[in-house]
């Protein structure tokens, strides 16, 4: 039984309640130490921010200097704002750049700017400490938001809204409102530094301008007859032995994005110098660059077309002046006279029979699933007065696969018709295959036949490309290839070529080539050994 007087109960109760209240107050006493620590931390952060602001503002002024005549000291205006400038980034007195709901701290009243109230440094007055913490926090927030690096970022975004019949716009689906896409400015607290801003501006400018590329090559070759008699031309001129040749070529590319998934492309080419093909009388071109030669020392429009992509970019349509061989008869190891084999017979299939570029259309359907289908047509003679009399059409089926124990392989089959000769539609068909035997070795081959009444001309080629470790430097590659052309009309050509391509720099290659041609005409055979050097720059 509890025996206590009422005074004892009252006193005990009061003591316990007082103790509870003291305990409740304890955190406040403890927080004084925390507050001082926090204060010191804030002062340190503020000093760092101010130092950073000073460091950033100096280069920013330098970067903005070229624009000073136009915009004075204003910060560059984001493109999305229609060219309107923003308030100077480093003007703390202006409030438009302040974060929503933020109150600008009172300016310094003199003395230490971090201690505008002039409180003693060792003040332990909790309220004074709290006031100073609030002041410093506001100042830091202001510095972080506005001064240190940039203003809050502004950009335009695509937005889905719902608009009713009265034009009232809702953010959420609303009865009677129609779903509509619009564009709206958005402001976010994304702090950029000066480098990022400059990079964005440059990138934006690049996207909206015409891009120019150059692909220039110089090929020096030397022809030595190894077999047979000297070639006698139709006019009786005897082609002497051991001659040097040089051809310089330069392609200028222009590319511009003109609409969604739509680009314009033009290639202007100029060639100068005599290639060996004018004298050696080979069935295929010794120098593949000659295939693009129209007139010496002139600029020629090689290609000019528009390309657009439809159906989730699965279907690409290209129309204009084309080189259809850029879309068909691809080969990973033998399809580029500027970096692989230089012999034209090891660049494209001899049975393609396409002699020049012309106006046309190419359609490529590629769902990126392994199969692809291509079709196209173009004018194949610039002397024809209408397209119907010189139409060259081509279709190709391609397949990417990976055979067991090997790398990936590309298998392509094509069929073409051409009525340029005026003898009806001349047909041809062929295949182009490249198969990786391993990461370093690629086997390639082509076969083709073209109609030449009463039989067909035959073409085939094959070889290997080596890269990735089987070379002096990582980017180097080399290859050996063989081709044979066997036309019905007579003559026969067998070609062997080896090349080594040094990747000197990303935009600069040096290649050494050795070609050997055997040209058979009836019982006579002539052989030519053609060593050469190719310098190629592309940028």
């Amino acid at each position, binding site marked *: *039984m*509890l*025996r*206590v*007087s*009422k005074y004892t*109960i*009252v006193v*005990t*109760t009061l003591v*316990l*309640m007082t*103790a*509870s*209240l*003291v*305990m*409740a*107050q*304890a*955190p406040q006493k403890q927080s004084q130490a925390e507050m001082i620590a926090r204060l010191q931390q804030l002062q340190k*952060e503020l000093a760092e921010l101010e130092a950073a602001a000073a460091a950033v503002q100096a280069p920013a002024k330098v970067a903005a200097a070229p624009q000073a005549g136009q915009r004075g000291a204003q910060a560059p205006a984001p493109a999305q704002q229609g060219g309107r400038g923003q308030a100077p980034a480093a003007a703390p007195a202006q409030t438009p750049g302040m*974060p929503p709901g933020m109150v600008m701290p009172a300016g310094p009243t003199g003395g230490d700017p971090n201690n505008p109230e002039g409180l003693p440094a060792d003040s332990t007055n909790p309220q004074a400490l709290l006031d100073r913490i609030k002041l410093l926090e506001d100042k830091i*927030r202001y510095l*972080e*938001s506005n001064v240190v*690096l940039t203003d809050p*970022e502004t950009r335009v*975004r*695509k937005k889905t809204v719902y608009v009713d019949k009265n034009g009232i716009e809702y953010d959420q689906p609303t009865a009677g409102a129609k779903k509509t896409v619009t564009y709206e400015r*958005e402001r*976010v*607290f*994304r*702090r950029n530094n000066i480098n990022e801003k400059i990079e964005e501006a440059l990138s934006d400018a690049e996207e909206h301008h015409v891009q120019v590329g150059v692909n220039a090559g110089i090929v020096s070759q030397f022809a030595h007859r190894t077999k047979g008699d000297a070639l006698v031309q139709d006019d009786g001129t005897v082609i002497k032995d051991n001659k040097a040749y040089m051809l310089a070529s330069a392609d200028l590319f222009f590319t511009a994005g003109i609409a*969604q*998934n739509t680009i314009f492309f033009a290639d202007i080419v100029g060639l100068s110098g005599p290639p060996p093909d004018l004298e050696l009388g080979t069935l295929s071109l010794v120098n593949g660059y000659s295939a693009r030669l129209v007139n010496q020392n002139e600029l020629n429009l090689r290609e000019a077309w528009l390309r657009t992509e439809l159906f*989730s*970019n699965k279907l690409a349509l290209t129309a204009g002046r084309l080189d259809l061989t850029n879309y068909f008869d691809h080969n990973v190891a033998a399809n580029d006279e500027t970096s692989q084999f230089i012999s034209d017979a090891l660049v494209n299939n001899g049975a393609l029979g396409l002699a020049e570029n012309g106006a046309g259309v190419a359609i490529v359907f590629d*769902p*990126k*699933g*392994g199969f692809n289908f291509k079709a196209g047509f173009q004018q194949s003679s610039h002397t024809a007065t209408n397209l119907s009399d010189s139409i060259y059409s081509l279709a190709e089926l391609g397949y*990417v696969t*990976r055979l067991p124990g090997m*790398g*990936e392989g590309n298998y392509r089959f094509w069929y073409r018709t051409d009525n340029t000769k005026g003898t009806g539609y001349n047909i041809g068909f062929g295949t182009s295959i490249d198969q*990786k035997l391993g*990461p370093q070795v690629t086997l390639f081959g082509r076969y083709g036949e073209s109609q030449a009444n009463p039989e067909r001309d035959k073409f085939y080629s094959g070889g290997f490309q080596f890269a*990735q*470790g089987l070379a002096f*430097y*990582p*980017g180097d590659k080399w290859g050996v290839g063989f081709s044979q052309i066997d036309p019905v009309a007579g003559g026969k050509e067998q070609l062997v070529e080896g090349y080594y391509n*040094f990747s*000197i*720099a*990303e*935009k*600069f290659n040096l290649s050494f080539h050795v070609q050997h041609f055997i040209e058979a005409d009836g019982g006579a055979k002539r052989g030519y050994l053609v060593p050469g050097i190719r310098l190629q720059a592309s940028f």
Partner: protein
Amino acid sequence: MSKSKRFLAAAGLTASVFGLAVGLLGLAPKSVARAAEVKVADPTSVVMIVNRDSNDIAFMDIKTKKIVGKTFLGNNANPHMVMMSPDGRYVVTGGTRANKAFIIDSHTLELVKIIPVDVAPEHLAFSPDSRWYYQGNPEGDSISVIDMQSLTKIKTIPGFAEPLNVTFTPDGTKAYIGNYGAHWVGVVDVRRHELMKKIQIAAPPGTAKLDPGRYLGELHGINIATPTPDGRFLYAADGALGMVGVIDTREDKVIKTIQVGKDPWRAYMSHDGKYVVIPNNGDETISIIDTSSNKVAATLEAGPGMVGVNFAAGKAFVISSSSGFVYVYNMSSLRPAGRIKLGTNVQLETATTDTADQKIYLAESTTNEVVIIDARTEAVERVGNVGLYPWGTHIMDSKDNYCH
């Protein structure tokens, strides 16, 4: 005792208990509040979304696809990568523009600690025992070491060159740091938190001096050393050299270098450990390396600006950031298997895969969405308004947790 005395005694005791309760509440308000506001009971049940420009981490329930909470980090924090500790207790992120690490309680989603680190914190990792949180500071050339027991930064390890990703060994004794501003991987002794070794992946070729634009310009070095599932080997792609170095973690040496395409971004390990996929942004291809032979098994066409690879349902999903496509590859046949169009004029970011390897959660920053791809059917579902500029996603225990 009389009735009045009993009444007084009872009243006094009640008041005392009440007073004590008030006092205790005043002492520990947070712990009480924490217990009352659990928003995520199971840390594996949510997808974490790092929203760069709304400066928060959003938590999306995997089942309901609803945002169950967001943790605001402060204006201009601009978080980069989010990760949950292996024990599921904390979620952390580095605020790139705040130079701070943010530690979030994974259950209440409260921001429990802000820790100043070095300049521009981006990628991060936890030691397997959840004790250490290594925060890479690429612009500070350092790693900040945060003790997750005391929630304090205990050390800043200097000496790196734009350190990006951190890889701990399974036993937690070493961490490997990819240096994007160099051609070496740093090896850190986790017991002492010191940089022990620099493993050079490959030397620049002899022709490097002829190509200053490539080798003396902006250096694309090593993003990450990607481990095999057992942690025995690491695959480190070097962008400038176009090489992948295979590191033996027992001996800390490169046992093989493999040439891949141009400007490889980084290595991604398939979940079965059989293949490593390397997106080559320089020539828009992917190289698939067979880990049993350490040879390139296939080089396949891909897209521009690749920023991530996820594996699910026997396929590899390669994210082409600027094209709006995810390229798909069959990992059995190593052949292309189509591509998924996710939009026009959109910017795809990075993704995580659920632990069942069924669904991929991809951040899409242009429309502030997370795109959920069913790996088997390739059907797409979108969750909108997750935050501003979702930059990446993370699921606890996922095998595809990575950042740009």
